[in-house]
């Protein structure tokens, strides 16, 4: 049985010691009498999210009924009929890597194994081991074939050092909002320590001390004093740098944190920008729907502003007029002025940098400059903790107003 628990873990279902104890408790109580009840008890104990139901069923079938479970066969058929697989097969045969005769005689497992090897190799080469790059990839393996075509040269070209001049015809974007499994449990605890206590709602909470005081002053005639209750109403604005290659190595990290922020708080708005902020941020990851600068500034001062970006750019992007990285920009103000405006509008704001703090001074001079405008921390648990503390401190003065 222990092995089954590990299989579940390997499949990506979080199995805790606690739940294993629960499972044995159920066995002890005689709840597991046959295969059906074993299935139900195990699912109840181990599976907490509906997204994991399918994974659980497959793991269960594979473990208890062997590899020939009907489910798995069905999945193979799906895979064989899928476009990427067909394309891969054609390519293999055309290039002579695979004999057409072999394609018919090789066992299915072997073909699938080779297919995945190709996919994995492609991924590692072109996208830093991350599968979130690309355009709108619907299926998990569908878009990896498309990656080498767009902008492949740049992967090995100038962008390696993170400094890009004008990016012509840049069409790539990284969709951080895509769904990926959440990994870092402790993040939530850090984030949920973010507080913004504000009096809200009707005057409904009785101020007992004040009531007694006033009543006594009043010669015993009761005078009830009500106040608004304090509630934690954190509003967050997240600005994400989602363009260019300099952010590419940090995608998984940023994604995890972004997800945690989104799931932990009720009032979160997120906007995207590219490298530096020049008067506009965008509502969608593709950066086609702009949000007006004034509208963004208006969200302050009570909202907490979190900017996630590497602050790593060519110095001219930050300091020069017309410095914006896109060709057709007509923006005259240099980047740092926009940042200062933003900082003023959001007294409680931090810049989270995925580059480790120790490396800031080696990476780019712009990091230092931006850190003099925004309070900057790196995206480690410690950095995040300090950032939240800073936000709470700055925020408490704003909330009191």
């Amino acid at each position, binding site marked *: 049985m222990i092995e089954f628990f590990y299989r579940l873990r390997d499949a990506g279902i*979080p199995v*805790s010691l*606690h*739940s294993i104890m*629960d499972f044995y*408790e*159920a066995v002890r*109580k*005689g*709840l597991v009498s046959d295969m*059906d*009840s074993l299935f*139900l*008890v195990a699912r*109840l*104990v181990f*599976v*907490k*999210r*509906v997204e994991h*139901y399918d994974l659980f069923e497959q793991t269960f079938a594979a473990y208890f009924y062997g590899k020939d479970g009907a489910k798995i066969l069905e999945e193979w058929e799906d895979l064989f009929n899928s476009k990427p697989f067909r394309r891969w097969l054609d390519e293999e045969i055309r290039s002579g890597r695979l004999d057409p005769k072999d394609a018919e005689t090789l066992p299915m497992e072997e073909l699938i194994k080779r297919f995945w090897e190709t996919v994995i190799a492609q991924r590692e080469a072109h996208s830093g081991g991350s599968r979130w790059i690309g355009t709108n990839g619907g299926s998990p393996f569908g878009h990896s074939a498309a990656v080498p075509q767009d902008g492949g040269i740049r992967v090995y070209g100038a962008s390696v050092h993170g400094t890009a001049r004008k990016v012509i015809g840049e069409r790539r974007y990284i969709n951080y909002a895509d769904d990926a499994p959440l990994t870092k*449990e402790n993040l*939530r605890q850090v984030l*949920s320590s973010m507080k913004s206590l504000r009096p809200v*709602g009707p005057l409904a909470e*009785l101020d*007992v001390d004040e*009531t007694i005081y006033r*009543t006594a002053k009043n010669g*015993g*005639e*009761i005078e*009830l004093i009500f106040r608004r209750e304090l509630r*934690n109403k954190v509003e967050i604005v997240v600005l994400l740098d989602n363009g260019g290659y300099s952010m590419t190595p940090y995608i998984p990290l940023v994604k995890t944190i972004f997800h945690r922020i989104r*799931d*932990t708080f*009720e009032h979160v708005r997120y906007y995207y920008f590219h490298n530096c902020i020049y008067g506009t941020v965008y509502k969608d990851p593709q950066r086609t729907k702009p949000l007006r600068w004034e509208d963004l500034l208006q969200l302050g001062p009570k909202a907490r502003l979190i900017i996630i970006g590497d602050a790593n750019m060519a110095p001219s992007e930050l300091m020069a007029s017309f410095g914006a990285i896109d060709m057709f920009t007509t923006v005259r103000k240099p980047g740092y002025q926009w940042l200062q405006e933003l900082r003023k509008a959001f007294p409680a704001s931090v810049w989270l940098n995925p580059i480790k703090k120790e490396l800031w001074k080696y990476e780019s001079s712009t990091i230092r400059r931006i850190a003099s405008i925004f309070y900057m921390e790196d995206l480690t648990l410690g950095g995040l903790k300090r950032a939240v503390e800073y936000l709470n401190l700055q925020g408490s003065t704003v909330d009191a107003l």
Partner: protein
Amino acid sequence: MGATSNAIRFEGTDRYYLNPELREIVNIAIAMEKPLLLTGEAGTGKTRLAYEIARALNLKMEEARCKSTFKGEELCYVYDTVLRLNDSRFGSGNSGRNVDNIWDYIRFGPIGRAFIAEDRRVLLLDEIDKTDSDTQDNLLDVLEEGSFIIREINHKIEARVKPIIIITSNAKRELSDPFLRRCFCHYIPFPSPEEMAIIVKLHYPDIPDTFLEACLTVFYRLREQEFEKPPATAELLDWIGSLRASGLKGPGGGKDIPFIGTLLKRTEDILKFKGMRRRERF
């Protein structure tokens, strides 16, 4: 307590169709004394299940409909300061309350009542996802330990018999991991046409089979089209009720569905439905 909990088995009731899998799940949760968290689309009978468990096992029910303003404590108890102040000023009259006795001013909420009861109760926390995540975590502590403290007098209330706890969520917001870990979670899928036929028959026992079949075909076809709010069980039952009350022989030929307002509730959905029909006609 172990003996009694093993003896309790929920087998469904005559008014409520119970999927056999769900029946087993309820029984496992009861035997393990774990809160059962039910998620799923509206109209899959999450809330009804709690009522039916109470009815079938002949237990009393304590019900908390969650609101976003809940802090958790009011589900355990409320200390009525204003009333006590009033009594201390004007006297408690002949209400029998004694100003010196704080217990006369503490009112228990659903959790409190379930804990102090001599008998086993069914405790329903409906739509838990409406509350803050802090509230959820606090509540789970209370439910897991089966006790809470009345802060004003530092008095611990402990459950005499652990209630059967049913929690429902419409998954408007994600529930926290620690919360999920402490519950047994079950997602109720939307009933299949076969199951739906049984459910409808529980409400309209004399419905002719052909009529029912025609209604279900229309109903499931509507559900497949992507409406903002797809019709669910309650809408289906209303609709069939209207059809029967008006004496119609069938649910319409597919182009004109009578009483569409009972199935689709949103204006955009109705407009979409009508637009679609028109396009199909020409």
